[in-house]
């Protein structure tokens, strides 16, 4: 018991203990968050290299760098690793783990051991997928039947890996929901919760409701290949479109599992650097839940050209447009928060502003694809690729980089070089747009996705896109180096470098093992900037 009193007087940062066991056996949400952060960053860089290789092949019209089959493998690995190992666990597992208990004033998540178990399951899934690389699949990340049931590449192992990963996602979501319900500090009412918490809550609901369905779908695909089950095989009376229905019933909500946490990050960064209370708190909070709800009703918009009925297509098209409403609510509220604010262009803020700009382009081009007539023309072209990357990189990855720069001092207790961070941001912003904006034009002109070769008339736009990928890759490279350099020789970070009001900034950097010396009593929301107390 003597230790008990000591622990309450002496500040022991959570990073204090050293040694590999203090990491792999930890139940501390902050350390588990770091392990996720390292893992997802690793997979982000690996899958990013696959993307650079693809773009290099596309520099010239002929397939002169890799064989078409290798190209198919490259886009499959790029897509499935980016989606399932980086962006789906992504912000939710890394920053969600680090921030949720700190932001709600709790000592940890509700089930710390389960939390560690989720991470091990994530690693197990990753290990299975790495084994699958011996004979990598060439199906695309969507694993569409009937091709995925017949190709002689290793579909079983990679889908098994994704299936295992799904459990990690489910258990993390479950842990976060219970944590947010049961572990809030006294006075931390629902309407005082930081918006990142609302976003994490909506994300966790999606993880819980959608992931089991993709789990069973992938299991069915595995039995299709191993036991000869024929649910998706027309020759046995099955229906390949059923796979698409099942797959997108998960994978469309999964799109929001990827983006909603990033929206939460933006809602935290903007008021701090605009020095204004967030505009439309409740609208932003409930629009997260609104997006989560509508996301379950739109899956068939991926299948307008798959032979679904006209009535179904019309209804799904209409429902798809509905998603624009809660999304636009967020964008308008962020913009209104900026209005007449005293804006400080910190690197995290630059990423947040890039998010608003790029995500808006991504969102609006989504409406083109949701419109039936336009989609017949644009389906499976580079327009889709460009749209998706504007949402996923322009949205989620900008949010992820923003979060990295924003919470870096808190998490690691060090500062990075702000000037280099801004230069890296500039390269990333320019590189991203040079890579993906030309792809809208390619798509409208009819260039289909997933081909290693293309007609010569597309060469100028295609090579422009490839040059852009180099600028983007270079920017990410500088950013990574800068953040790593900060860990080694960065200045010590103060407790609250931006004068932020939310709870995580009221503890030392890095936070103590137990988060709070005493559980705080919350008396107000965390967005009261620019007002006298």
């Amino acid at each position, binding site marked *: 018991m003597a230790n008990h009193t000591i622990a309450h007087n002496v500040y022991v940062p959570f990073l204090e203990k050293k040694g590999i066991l203090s990491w792999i056996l930890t139940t501390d949400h902050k350390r588990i968050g770091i392990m996720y952060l390292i893992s997802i960053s690793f997979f982000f860089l690996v899958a990013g290299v696959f993307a650079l290789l693809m773009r290099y092949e596309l520099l010239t019209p002929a397939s002169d760098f890799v064989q078409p089959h290798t190209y198919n493998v490259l886009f499959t690995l790029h897509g499935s690793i980016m989606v399932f190992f980086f962006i789906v666990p992504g912000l939710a597992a890394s920053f969600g783990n680090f921030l949720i208990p700190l932001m709600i004033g709790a*000592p940890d998540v509700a089930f710390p051991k389960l939390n560690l178990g989720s991470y091990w399951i994530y690693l197990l899934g990753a290990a299975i997928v790495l084994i699958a690389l011996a004979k990598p699949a060439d199906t695309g990340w969507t694993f569409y039947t009937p091709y995925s049931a017949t190709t002689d590449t290793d579909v079983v192992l990679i889908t098994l890996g994704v299936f295992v990963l799904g459990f990690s996602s489910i258990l993390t979501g479950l842990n976060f929901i219970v944590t947010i319900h049961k572990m809030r500090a006294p006075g931390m009412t629902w309407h005082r919760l930081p918006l990142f918490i609302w976003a994490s809550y909506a994300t966790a609901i999606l993880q819980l*409701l959608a992931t089991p369905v993709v*789990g069973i779908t992938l299991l*069915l695909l595995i039995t299709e290949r191993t036991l000869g089950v024929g649910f998706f095989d027309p020759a046995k009376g099955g229906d390949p479109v059923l796979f698409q229905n099942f797959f997108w019933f998960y994978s469309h909500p999964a799109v929001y599992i990827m983006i909603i946490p990033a929206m939460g990050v933006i809602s935290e960064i903007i008021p701090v650097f605009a020095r204004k209370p967030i505009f439309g708190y409740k609208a932003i909070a409930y629009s997260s839940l609104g997006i989560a709800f509508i996301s379950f009703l739109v899956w068939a918009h991926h299948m307008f050209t798959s032979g679904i009925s006209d009535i179904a297509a019309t209804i799904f098209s209409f429902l798809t447009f509905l998603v624009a409403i809660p999304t636009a609510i967020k964008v308008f509220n962020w913009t209104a928060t900026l209005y007449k604010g005293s804006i400080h262009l910190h690197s995290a803020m630059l990423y947040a502003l890039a998010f608003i700009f790029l995500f808006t382009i991504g969102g609006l081009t989504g409406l083109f694809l949701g419109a039936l007539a336009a989609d017949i023309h644009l389906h499976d072209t580079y327009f889709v690729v460009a749209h998706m990357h504007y949402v996923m990189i322009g949205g989620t990855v900008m949010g992820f980089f923003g979060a990295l720069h924003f919470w870096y001092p808190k998490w690691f207790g060090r500062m990075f070089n702000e000037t280099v961070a801004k230069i890296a941001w500039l390269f990333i912003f320019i590189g991203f747009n040079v890579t993906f904006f030309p792809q809208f034009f390619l798509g409208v002109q009819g260039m289909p996705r997933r081909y290693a070769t293309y007609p010569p008339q597309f060469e100028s736009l295609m090579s422009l896109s490839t040059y852009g990928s180099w600028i983007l890759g270079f920017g990410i490279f500088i950013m990574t180096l800068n953040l790593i350099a900060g860990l080694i020789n960065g200045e010590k970070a103060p407790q609250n470098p931006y004068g932020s009001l939310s709870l995580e900034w009221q503890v030392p950097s890095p936070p103590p093992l137990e988060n709070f010396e005493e559980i705080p009593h919350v008396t107000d929301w965390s967005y009261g900037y620019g007002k006298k107390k």
Partner: protein
Amino acid sequence: MGDASTEHSHGHHMDPAVEYSSSKLGMWLFLGTEILLFGGLFAAYAIFRAKYPEMFFEQHVELNKKMGAVNTCILIFSSLTMAMGVSAIQRGKQKVTAILILITILCGLGFGVVKYFEYSAKFHHHIYPDTSIFFSLYFLMTGLHMLHVFIGLTILSVLFVLTLKGKFTAKYSTPVEVGGLYWHLVDLIWIYLFPLLYLIG
């Protein structure tokens, strides 16, 4: 020592009342995901039944209704003993709880034995998961359920040992209650599978 006790306090400083309600909420959420996992198969069942009503009618008679009915009774009875076990530990009766959990485990094993004979009879008649859509559904749905029976039995065995060791009392019965919830789900899913596969013509 210092490190050990900090690490120890780190995992266990939750208020018991909060821990109880958290565990229950967590398990209910998990059961929801289990329903959704089976939901994919139930959806496939509905779609293919609507598409091939004759196949479902002709092939469901191959299933052994008696064995299915026996298994249904076994599982419902095991749910009863599980519920009685939870009630017993809430009143602090550790021995009674242990016996009731043991009976529940035996019922689960009995279910497995009956299922084993059912599956072997099917294989004996050269009926496999790839025989038809109906039998694909039969094997996958009952197989996935069987997997859940095994998981449930593992949980129950752990609970049985811990009960014997006296880990649970009237004040602390959370694991028994939460494990019980899981077992009821295993029972509940079977109660849907039995009529869908064996009875409806």
